């Protein structure tokens, strides 16, 4: 691992790097020297905009593909959410469909299926927060305490792999291991025992989901903790040990405070994402476990909207989820600031 990680530069911020005006050398070419700007602010500003436009023509051209993408697949679809306030009919289009105000949302909250999906989402999110979040941290602490570089590297190579497998593949592998005709149940049967319905029991579904997530991503999530652990000053440990602090004291007083910013950051991201409990994972297993346990907000949106043709209620459910998520991430970030951490958008973004 060490060879690939020898240089993780503490990246300078956009505003600090090029100190010179607009990347041009003052007085050379088209760039206006800073002095001229000060003397005649208004006209100069206009002039400067035009000259900047001319100067940055090619750079602006390069932004075009990305901006077109953002418009087509992000910003225009965001506006498309207005159908949540319509009785959207595909043959009428957004322009001619009837406006119904909040009716779709009112209907949603009277719909037991939606409430079930909402409850499932919160329930599974709580499971994930409690049982999933600490696992990578614990793994990272263990790996970090390994003395042998070889073992460390081998374990990391294995642990990162599942992150790159698709959910379809992960579920297929789980099925082959734990499914009704899977390896473990096959073995149980050979010993004359009853098979255990790991994959189809709605009651234990949250456990299954969390185990799958741990299997797929816990190793990967370890990376960031490992990096943070490596950045803790080793002399702190040495000094603490000299003062008689044992293993656990050192962990409590040095390691965990050192990891605090990272933990807070990841928690915020997790909270903003909490309503997205794992779309593909659920859609793949919904048939096996049943909608009662595996229906979450995302799958509800899919089945109501795309499969069932209830475009407006689907969009309403999706919009409700999106807005709540955005609010959650905002609130979590505020909370992090309150506790004196940087959070995600510290003082400025970029």
């Amino acid at each position, binding site marked *: *691992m*060490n060879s*690939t*990680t*020898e*240089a993780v*530069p*503490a*990246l300078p911020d*956009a505003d600090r790097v090029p100190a010179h005006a607009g990347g*041009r*050398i003052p007085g050379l070419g088209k760039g206006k020297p800073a002095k001229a700007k000060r003397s005649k602010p208004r006209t100069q500003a206009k002039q400067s905009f035009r000259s*900047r436009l001319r100067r*940055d023509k090619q750079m*602006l051209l*390069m*932004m075009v*593909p*990305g*901006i077109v*993408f*953002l418009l*087509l*697949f992000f*910003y*225009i679809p*965001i506006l*498309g959410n207005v159908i949540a306030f319509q009785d959207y009919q595909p043959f009428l289009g957004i322009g001619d469909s009837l406006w119904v105000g909040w009716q779709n949302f009112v209907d949603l909250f009277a719909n037991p299926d939606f409430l079930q999906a909402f409850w499932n989402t919160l329930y599974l999110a709580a499971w994930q927060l409690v049982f999933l979040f600490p696992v990578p941290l*614990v793994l990272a602490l263990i790996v970090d305490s390994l*003395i042998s*570089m070889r073992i*460390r590297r081998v374990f990391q*190579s*294995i642990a990162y792999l599942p992150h*790159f*497998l*698709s959910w379809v*593949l992960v579920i297929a*592998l789980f*099925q*082959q*291991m734990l499914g009704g005709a899977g*390896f473990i149940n096959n073995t149980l049967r*050979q010993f004359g025992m009853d098979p255990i319905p790991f994959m189809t029991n709605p009651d234990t579904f949250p456990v299954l989901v969390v185990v799958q997530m741990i299997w797929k991503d816990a190793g990967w999530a370890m*990376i960031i903790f490992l990096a943070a652990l490596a*950045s803790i000053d080793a002399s702190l440990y040495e000094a603490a*040990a000299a003062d008689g602090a044992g*293993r656990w004291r050192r962990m409590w007083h040095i390691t965990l405070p050192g990891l605090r910013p990272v933990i807070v950051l990841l928690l915020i991201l997790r909270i903003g994402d909490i309503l997205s409990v794992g779309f593909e994972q659920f*859609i793949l297993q919904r048939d096996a476990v049943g909608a009662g346990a595996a229906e979450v907000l995302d799958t509800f949106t*899919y089945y109501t*909207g*795309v499969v069932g043709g209830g475009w407006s209620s689907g*969009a309403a459910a*999706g*919009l409700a*989820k999106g807005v709540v998520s*955005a609010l959650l991430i905002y609130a979590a970030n505020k909370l992090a600031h309150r506790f004196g951490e940087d959070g995600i958008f*510290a003082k400025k*973004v*970029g």
Partner: protein
Amino acid sequence: MAITLSPEKLPLGRKPKARKPKELSYNPKRPVWKERPSPLYQTIKTLVLVLFGASIIVPILLVVSTSLADKDQLAKAGGFVLWPERPTLEAYQTIFNGPMVLNSLGVSAFVTIVGTILALFVTITMAYATSRPVLFGRPVVLAVLFTLLFAPGLIPSFLMIKQLGLLDSLWSLILPGIFGAFNFVVMRSFFMNIPQELIESARIDGASDWTILWRIVIPLSKAVIAVVGLFYAVGFWNSFFNALLYINDHSKWPIQLLLRNFVVQGSGAADGLGISSVPPSQSIQMAVVVVALVPILMVYPFLQKHFTKGVLTGAVKG
């Protein structure tokens, strides 16, 4: 390692301002002040690592072995083998005899290759154009970062694809994935770390922004481009939900959708794959799993060589 992401290796010998961070590696020798772990703690540690590692290796080994096992051994073992005694490619011959698997592999390969090239183009141009203070640079960056916090939602995205007339077209699998905000952040951070002197001197010599990008920035950024490209490629290869949403035509199914419909949902693999003779269906299913798995296993060593840095770069920038 031949190529690194480190700016220290740039041809101009300018020292980077950034302090060289601590290595992730560990001092191979135990520091004197560190007590030896207690046997109990040592046992727990070993157990956790071994169990976690085994839980990843065993299923993969099991699937690969079973796909290679012959009938007799499978029948004797009752469905699964951990090691094929007489390995046979029968299952693979069978699935490649039918049109479905080959077809879907072709679809996945096309989507992955074309998608990755387009994605790299869009990401590189966008990242370079905003890596220096240019007109509209900042609002564009903010517009990208905003996508990290909010998603337009499933239904509006679906309607957009429908509006563009891309339903049942392979472009519906490619276009929505050609720009990723995270990859953009990684690449832009890297571009911003390229010494400005290089770019200045090229400009004084009269190079246009395109020339600078093509002749200076891209050659210096091969490593990060490789990482981001691999991330995109893995994403395209693995993407399943877009296909479920947008593709009805069986002949346009990517491999992941095939896997879902014939292995995860287990609906008559033999009929669907257009296969007449049926060896044990277990090994056929496994063979399909392996076919989807192998490309990832093949690029994994390359990925692993570089990804840590990519992830950390993104994390530092947040």
